[in-house]
């Protein structure tokens, strides 16, 4: 393993991320923040939603922002670079095993996911007000889950970005990401699906459910949530599967 090259590859991604900071923020943050405003402010102030909904909403919004930033941050550039601009070729020739380029991409994606979770939390909290009833008792667990969510997002982006064709991007958005977000328990706790027993079982294949429930369970434990122990166990397995799949998919793209 060649750290000098790894660091240089990472520095390149960091440099590009800094250059695209504003567009990235707008791209990934705007939608969750608008959602926060409509559901957290408009609906609660008008009395159509209870004010307690706001505290429930914040962890879910963070889960969505982290997942989308991490996934898109890894998948979109890969889609273009492998198929269209081929600009990744120069980095594939760098004196390091090409798997490490994939690892570097995932590390950068996971860090981006963590940052976006933090960035979205600040304005969301401003929009929602300070009396959200958030708990700081389980910060260690919260951080663990956040890191696992970030890895899931980045490794998922690697798998997605190396699996789909450019013509299928639109389809991915409408067929995969939209249901994933709506059935990701970001806007409601998993327990509230109890009246839809089949759906409640079905959504468990959606990793975003564990992200939302995990962050909610550690940040706002007063709401019903899946036990953090289960969440961590599931996320570790999901992360492992996606990392292995992502690396394999990347290699099949990098070498013919």
């Amino acid at each position, binding site marked *: 393993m060649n750290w*000098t090259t790894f660091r240089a590859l990472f520095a*390149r991604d960091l440099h590009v991320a800094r250059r695209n900071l504003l567009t990235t923020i707008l791209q990934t943050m705007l939608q969750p923040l608008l959602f926060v405003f409509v559901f957290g402010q408009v609906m609660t102030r008008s009395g159509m939603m209870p004010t307690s909904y706001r505290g429930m909403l914040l962890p879910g919004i963070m889960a969505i922002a982290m997942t989308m930033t991490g996934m898109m941050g890894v998948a979109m550039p890969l889609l273009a670079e492998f198929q269209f601009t081929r*600009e990744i070729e*120069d980095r594939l020739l760098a004196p390091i095993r090409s798997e490490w380029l994939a690892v570097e991409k995932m590390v950068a994606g996971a860090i981006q996911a963590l940052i976006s979770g933090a960035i979205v939390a600040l304005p969301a909290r401003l929009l929602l007000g300070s009396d959200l009833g958030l708990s700081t008792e389980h910060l260690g667990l919260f951080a663990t889950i956040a890191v696992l969510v970030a890895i899931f997002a980045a490794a998922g982006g690697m798998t997605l970005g190396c*699996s789909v064709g450019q013509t*299928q991007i639109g389809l991915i958005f409408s067929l995969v990401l939209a249901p994933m977000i709506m059935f990701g328990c970001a806007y409601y706790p998993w327990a509230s699906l109890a009246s839809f027993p089949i759906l409640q079982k079905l959504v468990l294949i959606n990793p975003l459910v564990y992200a939302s429930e995990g962050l909610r369970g550690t940040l706002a434990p007063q709401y019903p949530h899946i036990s953090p122990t289960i969440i961590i166990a599931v996320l570790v397995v999901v992360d492992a599967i996606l990392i292995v799949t992502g690396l394999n998919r990347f290699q099949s793209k*990098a070498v*013919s």
Partner: protein
Amino acid sequence: MGVGIRTHELRKVFTTPPPLAAAGARFAGGGGGGLFKKKKDAKPNPNIVALDGVSLEVAPGEIFGLLGPNGAGKSTTVGILTTRVRPTSGEAYIGPYDAWKQQVDAKRLIGVVQQRPNLDFSLTAREILLFHAAYYGISGAERHERANRLLDQFQLTPRADDMTRGFSGGMMQRLSVARALMHDPQVLFLDEPSTGLDPQTRLLLWGIVREYNESGKTILLTTHNMEEADTMCHRVAIVDHGKVIALGTPAELKASIPGGYLVQLKLSAVPESLIEKLKSLSGVTEVRATGNSVDIYAGRGGSLIGEVAAAAAENSADLHDVHIAEPSLENLFLHHTGRSLRQ
């Protein structure tokens, strides 16, 4: 001391369309196998033999050319040597390192200019060079010094701090070569380097490549441009259908064509008596007839035409077209394969 290249009985059979490297025209398209493709719809991919036992030895400090039409296996050879294509069998070495088994060591020694520009669109021209050097662990001051020198050499200084998205094809190609030279590689691969370049840029590029070679570096270039192979290369291997069909210096190769000159005729009819007559003309070494076309390999060109016209008239065949080609690699290719390089 320079670094050579060696391949031994290199074979590559593509079972899936090659995704990135080695995407010769022959393999274009059909790569859309994606997430939603059902298994039962997937047709069994025909095995495409891209390389069929290529053994080459390129000496340190040599400019070696791979000449052949699209899909001949040139890019696949480069792909294997540059670690981007896994060989089905056989061996490929960059200096002492196996290009497949000792990838990282091999990658340190090589610089690659791909057929299609693949510049990093998220960076400026200067940043592309700086980051490239950083991947190879070159120190900060040294990086900047080299980038300035190469930008200047490739006449890119005025646009050094622009994003490359708006660059012309020629500028992108120049920057690609500059990038490949940033880490001072022992072996430089140029895959169709002058495709799409204007004559002026081509001359600039050729000059720089020669100069680089004079500093002891090995250069392997692929081309389907006869002139390029002829003027640039110390030795040329002509490849077709994944096989080396001729190998030698451009002069040796041209000398190996029977006669040297090629006179191509189109006639209204080609009676056997005409062919016999043509064969008997002085200086003619070989006559090949296909349909109403006749290829004459001969030791002279223009002076033959009068006799050819007389022979045609004698055998009541009308001459429709006459073309005289001087000794060239193009003729050599035609001689070996019966096809033109451009076909």
